[in-house]
């Protein structure tokens, strides 16, 4: 179950678990293994989408480098839809 199929990069379950636990209000709250897997994948998608949207914005402006203002422009759509 530990074999990674497609990409070597992406969020690890332990990291995701620790991040979530930072913000839980109840000490007893836990996350199932399946849920952690899904969350890790969801975060991968979130980051890739942020990167892709920002890149598309930069390309639409005929630039070959993505800068922070491109992220700012796509931020509302990105965060609203989540």
């Amino acid at each position, binding site marked *: *179950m530990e074999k990674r*199929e497609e*990409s*070597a*990069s*992406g*969020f*690890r379950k332990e*990291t995701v678990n*620790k*991040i*979530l*636990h*930072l*913000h*839980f*209000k*109840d000490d*007893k*709250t*836990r*996350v*199932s293994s*399946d*849920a952690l*897997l*899904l*969350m890790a*994948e*969801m*975060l*991968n*998608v*979130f*980051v*890739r*989408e*942020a*990167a*892709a949207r*920002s*890149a598309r914005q*930069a*390309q639409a402006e005929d630039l*070959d*480098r*993505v*800068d*922070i203002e*491109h*992220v*700012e422009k796509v*931020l509302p759509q*990105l*965060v609203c*839809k*989540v």
Partner: protein
Amino acid sequence: MEPLGEQERERLLHTQRLKAAVHYTVGCLCQEVAEDKGIQFSKQTIAAISEITFRQCENFAKDLEMFARHGKRTVINSEDVKLLARRSNSLYSSTDLTTAGASAMS
């Protein structure tokens, strides 16, 4: 200004370590997108996406905890995560694909 208490200092260090882990992963993922699209990401861009992702996790965590509590559970499960992803097509599909992949593997 009072110096940070021991517990607060620990928490701050812990948070910084996690932010660094997120930053590293975000960097890797952005590198893949960069190669895919033939474009470069500035360091500030990666830092920004990293910060945004970290902040989103706070919302995710609180929502997940609430969903589980709503279901009278202390353990957050896959259904809670799917509920979280419902608004975005790409996020929701990612939860479906992974579940399908996981059951195909078992």
